[in-house]
């Protein structure tokens, strides 16, 4: 092997590909021996950079990207298919109850307009913050008839998970904020309100996850 041929092969040799001909050559050529040693030293240095590298993207970047994915492409956890007929059945029962139940005179408005009918709110079961996956039985819809004759002291309903939001992780830090929502706002959180006036507003509290997205809501009367 000539020194020119050696120069073509020395890099692969230094990167771990053994070549008997190269080794034979460096035994005879001191200059090429030094060149091989230099290349091997360089390879060792580069390997050292590679193995000692500890840099990593910040955890916040993953949270940001996943939150954006949830917004752009839908939640990470799909609502099981069986819940759709179950919810449809529950809605039919609610509708039947509304039409068949004896009407009672209104005792007072929820807020604002004195002519506002008593709103019916179909809500999901309460959310336990420590349990990210509500059980199937808790998902059954139930009816709360919200009527108030006289101003009552403020009461808090249980938190209801927002259907399309990612369930809370038990270790996740949450923030609770109070908001004043319209019927449309409630509907956007998965709470359908029957008989509500368009201008009806209610006080509610939202649980915000670490990514700032609402995970659960409860009405505050």
């Amino acid at each position, binding site marked *: 092997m000539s020194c020119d041929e050696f120069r073509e092969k020395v890099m692969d040799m230094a990167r771990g590909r053994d070549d008997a001909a190269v080794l034979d050559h460096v035994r005879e050529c001191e200059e090429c021996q030094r060149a091989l040693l230099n290349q091997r030293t*360089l*390879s060792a240095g580069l390997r050292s950079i590679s193995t000692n590298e500890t840099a990593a993207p910040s955890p916040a970047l993953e949270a940001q990207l996943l939150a954006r994915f949830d917004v752009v492409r839908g939640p990470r956890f799909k609502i099981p298919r069986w819940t759709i007929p179950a919810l449809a059945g529950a809605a039919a029962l609610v509708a039947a109850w509304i039409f068949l139940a004896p009407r009672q005179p209104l005792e007072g408005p929820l807020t604002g307009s004195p002519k506002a009918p008593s709103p019916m709110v179909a809500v999901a079961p309460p959310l336990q913050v420590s349990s990210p996956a509500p059980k199937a039985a808790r998902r059954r819809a139930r009816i709360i008839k919200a009527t108030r004759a006289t101003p009552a002291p403020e009461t808090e309903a249980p938190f209801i998970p927002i259907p399309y939001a990612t369930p809370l992780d038990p270790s996740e830090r949450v923030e609770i904020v109070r908001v004043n929502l319209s019927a449309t706002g409630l509907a956007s959180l998965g709470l359908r309100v029957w008989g509500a006036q368009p201008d009806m507003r209610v006080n509610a509290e939202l649980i915000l996850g670490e990514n700032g997205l609402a995970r659960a809501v409860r009405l505050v009367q």
Partner: protein
Amino acid sequence: MTDANRFAKLYRQHSVRIFRFALQMSGSPAAAEEVTQETFLTLMDRPDLFDPARGEIGPFLFGVARNLVRRHLERDRKFECMDDNAEGFSTNEDILGDLTRRENIQALKDAILVLPPKYREAVVLCDLHEMSYEAAAAVMECPVGTVRSRLNRARSMLLAKLQARCLV
């Protein structure tokens, strides 16, 4: 598994390597973070760009990151590049230093950062990320022979730089 879970899994599998590649190419953690974010946003917004028939997702992500890094380097010319024609294949020096020592490692990192980008990416992909010539060629969008010659040239330039500092 939903799309979002698949995306999360992909992110966890590849983000560190993409981040390190961008960091080793740019020398800037902020730029590396930006490149990593943009790479995965590209995957999120334009999943059609990835064709499994053309290769695996890893090299695809490296390819996206490479283009973003190059754009960043053009925008922010932070490092003065080494002369492309610098003669590097010196054989007159004995080994003077241990390249695995911490200060020498930093000197080697600095030397990589002043390589011209086309040589820098060859070293980063083939030597730091231990990619095969074929995989690096797919990322660099060039023939395998070009990767080999760029890597050879890059290593010669690094040796010249380090010998000037008496590190090898």
